[in-house]
């Protein structure tokens, strides 16, 4: 088993081999290439399980790092191609291969009959490879490579139905929006590596960068600038506000793609990278503050957007944005474990939800929940698994989502206890957004499964190849949470698994009160430097991002339960009996009219809590997202185009080119005048020569 870690790169290479093989001769195979992808991922999945087991049982363990000195880059620096296997990598390997395998199996039935079936499988495998390159990277440059390849694959898969203009636009939008973030990522990586010059000849090495940061060898400006720029990359890739706009549009791709890319794996790349560089970003309160605030904004406003959607996939897309906001916010409040734990569990249940949605769409040939209804009887397996996924997403107690989301909220609470306002923000807004999440998921579930069938096709349950993955993912959506739950406080658990030795040192969070006050993220009081509240709250040893043995938090449990019940209840009120004549989510009247329109005690909460949230904030959020932020992106595009046109027409063609032509013309003008000197009269020439001689003679005489 020990040797398995040394061969972790095989997991990465398998999908690459299968992608190439599918592209080369997939069409000749009986399953059109699907079997190659499934086989490669199956082997990779088995290996990942082995690796995960190995790292989990031995946790906390030293990371295994192996690399080639792949190429010199000049100046004595070297680009390594290598792998870094620790708990975090193993966790991601497990997550990516699991979801990818499920999607591979599922797609065989879902995509049956598609013209580009083989191409689809090649792309799926290629995508998996790209993501694994990023995950296993031992250096930031390799991570950037994986990151960009992931972006390309996502472009190819979103634009899978490229005959339609809207799909092309969605693909371009996704690629370009994330590419814009990549500017930040690339420059950030460059800045960080520049900080490593003189310390090492492998300036991109993640472990060395982390070590240098915690040893205080990197200057503050390097850390702040580098990490903020890298965070810009995460904002775009992980769908944080305001660069989330591409994610809902990306639902134009086939549903399995949405499950694989836009829910479970690709969008988590940003969070993963933040986790990888956590020791670096933890050096600056400013960076953490910015991350936390962006995360909080996203988790809340992103979730609101889902309220008014009719397209099931878009509801899920917005929920993804919101959940990613949780993860990012958790990083920003020091909840390293909480963040990646949520990433882990979210990957399973969001994949489950998307695949479930795919199953539904496959059955009714429509994405809209208004075209569904009553699916509970027709599609029992889909129904149960979808409900489990929804419960996990909503954070219902004892599901995986509950444990991981609570970790985040507790991390916020601890951080707040350290005196940072962002901790409070994460805690309370996180709670509120959990309610929103519950509500829209409940709305979707009710509209889809309850009431009468509104579709134009007789619904039918999907086949085994689709239901099988749903079942497995449903199990994981519940079970994965118990890796870090109060039921099993013993080690090893998820925390020890993903812990790296560097995180256990004293050097994390070196910033002092003065600094944090200056950054304006300090709340009332207590320091976080070398003593303390963090430790006191966590109840163990030195300052750490880890908070020790998981324990019950009855107060939080109570609040969560209340919010959950409230949201589900509200959703049931609106949608429990099928699609209402006028969907309240779509009746965006002013607040006063809504007040008048509702009666009774139940309406009180509706009036004072739901209506402002639903009718004002959500609309505002939708509008701002679609009109302003989206419009700004489009506007920048248009402005760029017109600027390009203008630049080309005026500056390039007239001014610059004009200057070039002008010099030629003036030469011609002068030559036309000067040529008259060439009269052809030799005697005049002779006279001119003699005159010149006279002048020269005089000049030389004068010089004497």
């Amino acid at each position, binding site marked *: 088993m020990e040797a398995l870690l040394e061969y972790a790169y095989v997991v990465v290479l398998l999908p690459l081999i299968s992608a190439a093989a599918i592209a080369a001769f997939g069409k000749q195979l009986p399953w059109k290439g699907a079997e190659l992808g499934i086989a490669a991922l199956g082997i990779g999945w088995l290996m990942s399980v082995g690796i995960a087991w190995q790292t989990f049982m031995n946790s906390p363990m030293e990371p295994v790092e192996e690399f080639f000195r792949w190429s010199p880059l000049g100046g004595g620096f070297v680009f390594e191609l290598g792998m870094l296997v620790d708990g975090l990598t193993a966790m991601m390997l497990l997550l990516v291969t699991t979801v990818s395998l499920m999607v591979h199996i599922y797609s065989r039935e879902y995509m049956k009959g598609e013209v580009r079936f083989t191409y689809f499988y090649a792309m799926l495998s290629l995508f998996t490879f790209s993501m694994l390159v990023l995950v296993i990277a031992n250096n930031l440059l390799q991570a950037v490579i994986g990151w960009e390849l992931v972006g390309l694959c996502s472009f190819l898969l979103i634009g899978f139905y490229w005959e339609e203009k809207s799909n092309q636009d969605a693909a371009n939008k996704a690629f370009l929006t994330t590419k814009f973030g990549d500017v930040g990522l690339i420059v950030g990586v460059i800045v960080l590596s520049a900080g490593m010059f003189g310390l090492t000849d492998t300036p991109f090495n993640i472990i060395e960068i982390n070590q240098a940061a915690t040893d205080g060898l990197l200057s503050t400006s390097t850390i702040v600038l580098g990490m903020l720029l890298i965070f810009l990359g995460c904002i775009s890739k992980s769908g944080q506000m305001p660069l989330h706009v591409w994610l809902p549009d990306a639902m134009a791709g086939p549903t399995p793609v949405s499950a694989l890319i836009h829910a479970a794996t690709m969008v988590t790349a940003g969070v993963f990278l933040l986790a990888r560089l956590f020791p670096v970003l933890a050096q600056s309160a400013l960076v953490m503050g910015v991350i936390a605030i962006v995360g909080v904004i996203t988790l809340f406003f992103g979730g609101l957007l889902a309220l008014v959607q009719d397209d099931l996939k878009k509801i899920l897309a917005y929920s993804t944005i919101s959940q990613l906001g949780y993860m990012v916010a958790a990083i920003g409040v020091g909840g390293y474990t909480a963040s990646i734990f949520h990433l882990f569990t979210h990957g399973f249940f969001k994949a489950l939800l998307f695949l479930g949605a795919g199953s539904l769409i496959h059955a009714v040939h429509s994405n809209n929940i208004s075209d569904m209804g009553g699916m509970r009887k027709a599609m029992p397996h889909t129904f149960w698994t979808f409900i489990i996924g929804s419960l996990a997403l909503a954070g219902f107690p004892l599901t995986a989502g509950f444990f991981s989301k609570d970790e985040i909220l507790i991390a916020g609470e601890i951080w707040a206890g350290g005196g940072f306002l962002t901790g409070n923000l994460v805690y309370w807004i996180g709670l509120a957004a959990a309610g929103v999440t519950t509500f829209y998921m409940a709305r979707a579930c009710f509209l889809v499964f309850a009431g009468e069938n509104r579709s134009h096709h007789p619904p039918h349950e999907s086949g085994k190849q689709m239901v099988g993955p749903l079942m497995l993912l449903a199990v994981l959506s519940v079970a994965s949470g118990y890796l870090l739950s109060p039921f099993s406080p013993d080690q090893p658990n998820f925390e020890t698994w993903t812990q790296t030795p560097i995180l256990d040192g004293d050097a994390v969070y070196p910033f002092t009160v003065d600094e944090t006050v200056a950054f304006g993220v300090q709340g009332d009081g207590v320091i976080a430097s070398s003593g303390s509240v963090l430790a006191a709250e966590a109840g163990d040893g030195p300052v750490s991002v880890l908070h020790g043995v998981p324990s019950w938090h009855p107060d939080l449990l109570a609040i969560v339960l209340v919010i959950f019940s409230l949201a589900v209840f509200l959703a049931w009120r609106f949608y429990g009996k099928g699609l209402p004549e006028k969907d309240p989510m779509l009746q965006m009247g002013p607040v006063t009219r809504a007040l008048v329109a509702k009666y009774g005690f139940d309406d009180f909460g509706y009036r004072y809590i739901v209506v402002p949230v639903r009718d004002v904030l959500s609309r505002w959020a939708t509008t701002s997202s679609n009109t302003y932020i989206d419009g700004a992106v489009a506007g920048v595009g248009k402005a760029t185009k017109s600027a390009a046109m203008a630049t080309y027409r005026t500056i390039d063609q007239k001014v610059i080119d004009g200057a070039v032509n002008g010099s030629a013309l003036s030469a011609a003008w002068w030559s036309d005048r000067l*040529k008259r000197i060439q009269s052809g009269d030799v*005697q005049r020439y002779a006279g001119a020569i003699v005159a010149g001689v006279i002048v020269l003679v005089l000049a030389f005489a004068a010089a004497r």
Partner: protein
Amino acid sequence: MSLIGPLLLATFLFCVGIYGIIARRNAVLVLMSVELMLNAVNINLVAFQNVLFPGEEAVSGLMFALFIIGVAAAEVGVGLAIVFNMFRNRATVNVDDVDLMRW
């Protein structure tokens, strides 16, 4: 005797030659003017031979003058041939009629 006598005479002949070259239309006359200039130079060379190598074995000045006479003879031969050719082709020996080199 004074050196400036021959020198001034040479200068005068040279300048008269220049005048002839510029002022005369007939190509043969232009050639004659060229001969004047060459001879002016010869006078100079001989005069300086006397100044620089009085009674010595070195005869560079005379040698140069001799060579110039030889070259001048060749030049007259070729020059007149060119004039004949020009006359045959264009029925004129006027240099200002031959202005193919103008723009």
